[in-house]
């Protein structure tokens, strides 16, 4: 059996698997009408057959993937391992950008949100423009501006700036990401803060809480719960956005993957890089899920 036929077969199987899955799902949904809300629906045998069929058709696909992966590893194991190692190093930088951006952009976002809601017109106007510009222009452009800006605008050479083990490329990307993500976080926080009922502020006020106490004890904890899903969304986007740091030639994972891919004339490094990103996001998703569950003690 040559490769072409195998692919055609696999393609048919995937199609059949998807069709079976859709049929079984639609079937189950149509049954819902006949049951009272929240009741457990007894699965009829016919639906079960379609689900089994879906699983059955998916098997060839899985087998092909496993075969491809094994052949990749066995044909040139050393190459595979060195790819993983190099991408792992790149991942270190990606994670560094991610980590520091989160550390800086979350508090900064809170400040920007507070600024935008300020009663003082000049302050609120400034932060409104800030959010508008940072959300309205490409992040890549902002990164370039942070990196080249100091030289072209002020004639400051940045090549020899170093903080600990980090060069200016790395620092500039963290500054750029933090400024940009702060704008997005600010809007999320603002939405959360403004969704709080006036009654919470009033109750705190008549009980004698100071403005600071009201904010940090009463309002903020409730806002955190409300904004968590949206913040999670941004955090996951950030993991993937770290790949933009390649415009500053930071040797983060995607830069590494590109270099390896052209050196090896293979897409394998990209696939492995994709797996790295995905794995990290699965972990983040799990953590966010746990956090949300933990905050579910009140509604």
């Amino acid at each position: 059996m040559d490769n072409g036929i195998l692919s055609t077969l696999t393609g048919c199987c995937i199609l059949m698997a998807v069709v079976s899955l859709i049929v079984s799902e639609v079937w189950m949904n149509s049954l819902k009408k006949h049951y009272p809300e929240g009741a457990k629906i007894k699965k009829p045998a016919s639906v079960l057959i379609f689900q089994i069929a879906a699983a059955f058709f998916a098997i060839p696909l899985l087998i092909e993937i496993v075969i491809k992966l094994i052949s990749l590893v066995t044909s040139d194991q050393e190459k595979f391992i060195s790819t993983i190692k190099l991408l792992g190093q790149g991942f270190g930088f990606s994670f560094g950008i991610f980590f520091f951006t989160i550390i800086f952009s979350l508090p900064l976002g809170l400040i920007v949100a507070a600024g935008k809601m300020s009663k003082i017109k000049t302050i609120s106007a400034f932060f409104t423009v800030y959010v508008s510009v940072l959300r309205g222009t490409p992040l890549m452009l902002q990164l370039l501006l942070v990196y080249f800006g100091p030289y072209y605008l002020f004639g400051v050479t940045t090549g020899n700036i170093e903080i600990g083990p980090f060069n200016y490329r790395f620092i500039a990307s963290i500054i750029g990401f933090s400024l940009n993500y702060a704008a997005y976080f600010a809007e999320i926080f603002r939405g959360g803060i403004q969704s709080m009922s006036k009654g919470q502020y009033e109750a705190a006020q008549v009980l004698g809480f100071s403005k600071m106490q009201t904010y940090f004890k009463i309002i903020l904890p409730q806002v955190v719960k409300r904004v968590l899903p949206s913040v999670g969304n941004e955090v996951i986007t950030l993991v993937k956005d770290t790949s933009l740091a390649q415009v500053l030639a930071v040797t983060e994972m995607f830069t590494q993957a590109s270099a390896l891919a052209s050196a090896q004339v293979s897409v394998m490094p990209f696939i492995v890089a994709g797996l790295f990103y995905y794995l990290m996001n699965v972990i983040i998703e799990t953590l966010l899920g746990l956090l949300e569950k933990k905050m579910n003690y009140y509604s």
Partner: protein
Amino acid sequence: MNILEMHDIRKSFNDLAVLKGINLTVSQGEVVAVIGPSGGGKSTLLRCATTLERIDSGKIVIGGDVLCDSDNGKIHYCDKKMLAEIRSKFGLVFQNFNLFPHFSVRRNVTEALIHVHNKTKAEADKICDGLLAKMDLTAKADEYPCNLSGGQQQRVSIARALATNPEIIFFDEPTSALDPELTKGVLKVIRDLAAEKMTMVIVTHEMSFARDVADRIVFMDGGVIVEEGPAYELVTNPKEERTKKFLAGY
């Protein structure tokens, strides 16, 4: 001794005059019910007395401390320190409770005691236990508000208002968000407080409750006090046409 004095209170929202010169005095141990149609200014009056709204002119004295005064039509509010002092002298119970949903019942009651009134946790807990027992909520101390019925939530909010040992408690339609059955429990608590000679101002639509529990009823409409007098007399034998018309609806 007068716990609350309000002289010639005027308040407008933009061009809409909501309070047009209200005079209200409440002496110690007195229970005053404020009744009247919606939009008559009852709630605004209460919100002005509890510092949630600023008045345009007039004078408010709570527990002997001047909250605000006006001369030549210019209003002066007291400084921050006095404001904090005044806020510790009254409690406010909201129509929709406004409990802190992320705090347990116990923390709702004790938080202000610990962080505003500098009580130790043990002292605060002791006060809380006493109040919860009084509200028949001892078993609910560690629950969160979302797991309580509306009546229980309102009783928690009464406990919260009482915790700081205020000289006067304001109720803003405390039973309007509750069904008749839950209303009973809340009214019983307020009745018990009246029996203990707690000074209270209650905005309410519960006419029979106002008649039985209040010493005095104030009928407000159109931003003025139309009629006021001893509770039983005002309800059974109102003098003003407007009052008669309003009470006929009950």
